[in-house]
């Protein structure tokens, strides 16, 4: 489903070059529920941004759903984000000026889906997250957990192949967090691949597989990938 | 607290320099346009003689023939005959009859080339009625006038041209071929608008020489500028004929200090018209008109329609600038919801925050006003170059400067009101959490 081959990302400022990712190799299979963990600043978010086509990378190859998406234009990337990927953000990122219905509608609008179908999909998605009755409300009238459920509904309405979640429970208390994670498990059960970035170990355990990122490199917790000192040194030298 | 708020205002202005500059220039341009037009408007609508404008009046009598003429207002001027008859009355404290002519003026000094100048025959009361300032000497006496003395009062500019500005009392000059003795030199005198004679334009300069009105029959000095309207189908021959014709051309002003005097004068005029009707004059209905200074200026529409129109547009312009500033202030205040929340959490009351933001709005307004004042000077310079004759006049006085700052601070406070009120409504905690 998702394959990263030797993906590197570096930022160059006037003085230094910072490496956010160093030659990351990673594969996520279809239907998997993967948790990506790691300390702050390890490159988790950069990984997610690259996987979600939100950011470009310096070198390497990214394959999504069997298609090489490494060197696409901004326009093509937008289309892929819209059609194949669903996002759940830590800060929910609902649009404050729009009501729930309109919020869920946003990606569908960009996809150019007809009004009747849009309506059906939005209502199904809101039904799934249990908020169909409040679709005329605006985000600020909801609790954090409810807002995140709307965000999930927004991601689901597009029927994505890949759902990317960035600390989906980071701003929620434990009860609400549990509801959200159960919702995600249900989604995974229907066949949607989920990649979730989190620093919450308990949450990570509920995933099929954990990938740990440290200093921009992936360490598969189960199949511990070996990483030679030599490789690390050569990358630094080539920088 | 005020200084602290001032300090905060300065910090805030520094933090968003582009936005602040936009606000200041929006107010400045709005104020500049408004003040330029208000200044010209005020000039036109000015009371030229404020302490007595309600007790001096210009007098007209409707002597038109019975032929159709739709204008209900009647003539703007008096005939020589009626002026002479009414001059005899002792009801008004002062009566001035006058008109403007143009004559060649010659100095005894051969080196001064003869030149054309405005000359105004006036009755002796003219100077005291209109309170003309004297630089040297004084007006002529009633005796001088009655005994047909050839005396003259000249303007400061004329005195400068003829005598280099020295005290010229007692010297002689030639006006239209006759010798006159100088008895007075006026100081600068530019009533604005030039209400006592609007014919030559409401904003032109005062004439060069004043001579006794009693000399008029002997002089044959035609009126120059303004209108002479004759209301008979046949006119009589020559100057003497003209003086007895039903022609209106003279300005007549009376000073009536009390209500009683005014009533008496009206009655006197009514009686005069009735008496003349018996002699076969005045075929129309009684239509005597007495206009006070401001009534006269309004009647003669001294304030140009174009300017009332412009004033309307200018205030709409200021409105745009105001809404503009409100919008900018609003967006600025939205940016600092976090800061306000923190201040509220730290114990700032709504009132102190309101105060803080209003101080900031005033600082913007003050800066806008100052810049607007500078721009308005440029605007006035522009207007001066566009209109002739406004040269001496389009200047801002302290009153207009005060209006400028008042208007700009008021605008900015008004503009600041909505954003400030909005921001003060914030619950202290609201923007602390999500940040």
């Amino acid at each position, binding site marked *: 489903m998702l394959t990263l081959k030797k993906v590197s990302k570096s930022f160059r400022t006037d003085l230094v070059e910072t490496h956010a990712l160093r030659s990351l190799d990673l594969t996520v299979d279809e239907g998997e529920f993967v948790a990506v963990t790691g300390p702050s600043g390890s490159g988790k978010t950069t990984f997610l941004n690259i996987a979600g086509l939100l950011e470009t990378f310096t070198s390497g190859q990214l394959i999504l759903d069997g298609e090489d998406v490494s060197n696409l234009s901004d326009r093509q990337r937008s289309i892929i984000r819209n059609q194949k990927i669903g996002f759940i953000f830590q800060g929910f990122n609902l649009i404050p*000026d729009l009501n729930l219905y309109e919020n869920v509608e946003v990606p569908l609008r960009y996809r150019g889906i007809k009004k009747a179908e849009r309506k059906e999909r939005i209502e199904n998605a809101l039904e799934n997250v249990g908020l169909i009755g409040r679709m005329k409300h*605006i985000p600020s009238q909801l609790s954090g957990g409810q807002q995140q459920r709307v965000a999930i509904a927004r991601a689901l309405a597009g029927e994505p192949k890949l759902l990317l979640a960035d600390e989906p429970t980071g701003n929620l208390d434990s009860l609400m967090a549990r509801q959200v994670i159960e919702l995600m498990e249900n989604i995974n059960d229907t066949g949607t691949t989920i990649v979730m970035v989190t620093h919450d170990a308990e949450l990570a355990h509920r995933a099929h597989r954990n990938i740990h990122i440290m200093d921009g490199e992936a360490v598969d917790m189960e199949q511990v990938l070996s990483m030679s000192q030599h490789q690390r040194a050569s990358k630094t030298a080539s920088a | 607290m005020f200084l602290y708020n001032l300090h905060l205002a300065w910090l805030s202005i520094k933090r968003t320099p582009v936005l602040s500059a936009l606000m200041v220039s929006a107010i400045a341009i*709005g104020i500049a346009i408004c003040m330029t*037009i208000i200044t010209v408007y005020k000039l036109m609508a000015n009371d030229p003689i404020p302490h007595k404008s309600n007790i001096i009046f210009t007098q007209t009598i409707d002597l038109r023939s019975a032929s159709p003429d739709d204008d209900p207002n009647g003539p703007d001027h008096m005939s020589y005959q009626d002026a002479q008859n009414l001059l005899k009355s002792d009801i008004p404290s002062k009566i001035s009859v006058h008109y403007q002519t143009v004559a060649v003026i010659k100095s005894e000094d051969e080196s001064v080339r003869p030149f054309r100048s405005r000359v105004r025959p006036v009755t002796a009361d003219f100077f005291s009625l209109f309170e003309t300032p004297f630089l040297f000497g004084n007006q002529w006496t009633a005796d001088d006038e009655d005994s047909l003395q050839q005396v003259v009062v000249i303007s400061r500019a004329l005195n400068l041209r003829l005598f280099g500005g020295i005290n010229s009392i007692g010297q002689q000059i030639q006006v239209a071929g006759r010798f006159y003795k100088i008895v007075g030199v006026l100081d600068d005198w530019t009533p604005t608008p030039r209400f006592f004679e609007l014919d030559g334009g409401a904003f032109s300069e005062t004439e060069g020489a004043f001579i006794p009105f009693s000399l008029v029959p002997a002089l044959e000095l035609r009126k120059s500028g303004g209108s002479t309207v004759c209301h008979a189908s046949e006119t009589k021959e020559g100057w003497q004929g003209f003086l007895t014709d039903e022609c209106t051309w003279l300005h007549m002003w009376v000073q009536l200090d009390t209500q009683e005097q005014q009533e008496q004068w009206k009655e006197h005029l009514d009686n005069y018209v009735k008496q003349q009707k018996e002699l076969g004059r005045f075929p129309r209905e009684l239509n005597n008109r007495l206009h006070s200074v401001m009534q006269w200026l309004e009647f003669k529409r001294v304030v140009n329609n174009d300017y009332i129109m412009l004033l309307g*547009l200018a205030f709409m312009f200021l409105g745009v600038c105001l809404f*503009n500033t409100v919008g900018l202030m609003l967006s*600025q205040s939205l940016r600092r919801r976090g800061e306000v929340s923190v201040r509220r959490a730290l114990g700032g009351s709504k009132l102190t925050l309101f105060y803080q933001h209003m101080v900031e709005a005033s600082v913007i307004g003050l800066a806008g006003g100052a810049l607007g004042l500078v721009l308005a000077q440029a605007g006035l310079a522009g*207007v001066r170059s566009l209109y002739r004759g406004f040269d001496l006049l389009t200047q801002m006085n302290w009153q207009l400067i005060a209006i400028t700052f008042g208007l700009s601070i008021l605008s900015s406070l008004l503009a600041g009101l909505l954003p400030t009120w909005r921001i003060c409504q914030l619950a202290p905690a609201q923007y602390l959490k999500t940040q």
Partner: protein
Amino acid sequence: MEIQPIFNALVRNRTGAMLIALQIALTLAVVVNAVFIINQKLARMERPVGIDKDNIFTLRTTSIDELENRETFLQADMDVIRAIPGVISATPVLTTPQGGGTRVDGYHAEQGGYDFAQLVNINYVDHMGFEALGLKIVEGRNFTPQEIRYVARNDDSVPENIILTEDYANRLFPEGDALGKNLYYGDNDRPIKIIGIAENMAAGWFGANSPVVADKMYDMVFHPYITYGNSAWYLIRTEPGAQNEVMLKVEDVLVERFPERLVDNIRSQNDLLSRVYASDKALAIILSTVIVLLIGITSLGVVGLANSSVSQRHKQIGTRRALGAQKADVISYFLIENFIVTTFGIIAGIFLTYGFNYWLVTEFAQPKLEGYYVPLGVILLLLLGQLAVFMPALKASSISPAVATRSI
């Protein structure tokens, strides 16, 4: 992209939008009315004057002492002026054409019809007058030298033969058969014969705004008179291109002939007309300045608000991008939003525009706003809004979708 969700978002966040709409409304009202007024002023300034204004100048001569024989004085002056090389013709006139000074009177076409006298502007010319003015006699004949008579300045008598402009002839004789007919003056029964009809010439009150003369701008009568008060006005027409040279020379020529005089107010007709139109031109310039500043202010307001709305919606725009919005979608969002706001402003502005015009019509008898002014103003403001919002929109479109995953 559709309008509905953008509109809904606007409604929930309406203050800023309303402020822009109000600005647009006022701007429309001011700009449309100002342009309308400017166009009226321009149209006024472009009215034809009939005479050969580019090659005519006038001057005033004043004798320092009383003159003995004014008639021969005038004739001698004309002789020397007409002899200056480059002069086509010259004539003494009562007043400068369109200079504001006028003799106004009324003639009527029926004996005893005083009640139907038609207001007219009178000027005096000698037998070379029409050549000097550059007016053709379209019907009948010119004055002969023998017909020209000297009259005193205040003499308001009438001649035996007169020439009218076409407009005045048609006003008195709508059938178009004025030539050879008689006119009457006052309640005098003496007939005055129309011997010629000249091309239209703008009257002395041409610069006036009075409704009384508004439709009588070309109503003129010419008397075969020459006159002299203590001064006289001369009108001189030169060959094209010779005007400046003649204007420089004429004073010397006149003073040489008769030294005891003052010559002043030597002004080309175009200079004189520019004085007549000084306040019209001034108003047009003031209004143009107002328009330019206003459009600038309004655009800056739109740009400023759009900019701050972009920075406020930074995260939101990033999220939209993450959810699949293309750059073009983001740009069109801002353009559509501006279009909606501007449209509301324009609707209010149209009321305001006609309201202001109504005030002018009722208070100042100004003409009614008609035609293409409002539609053009609407298009202008729509374009202006789109243009103003474009740069901020472009800036918004370059916000990275990765903004969505940033926690602050």
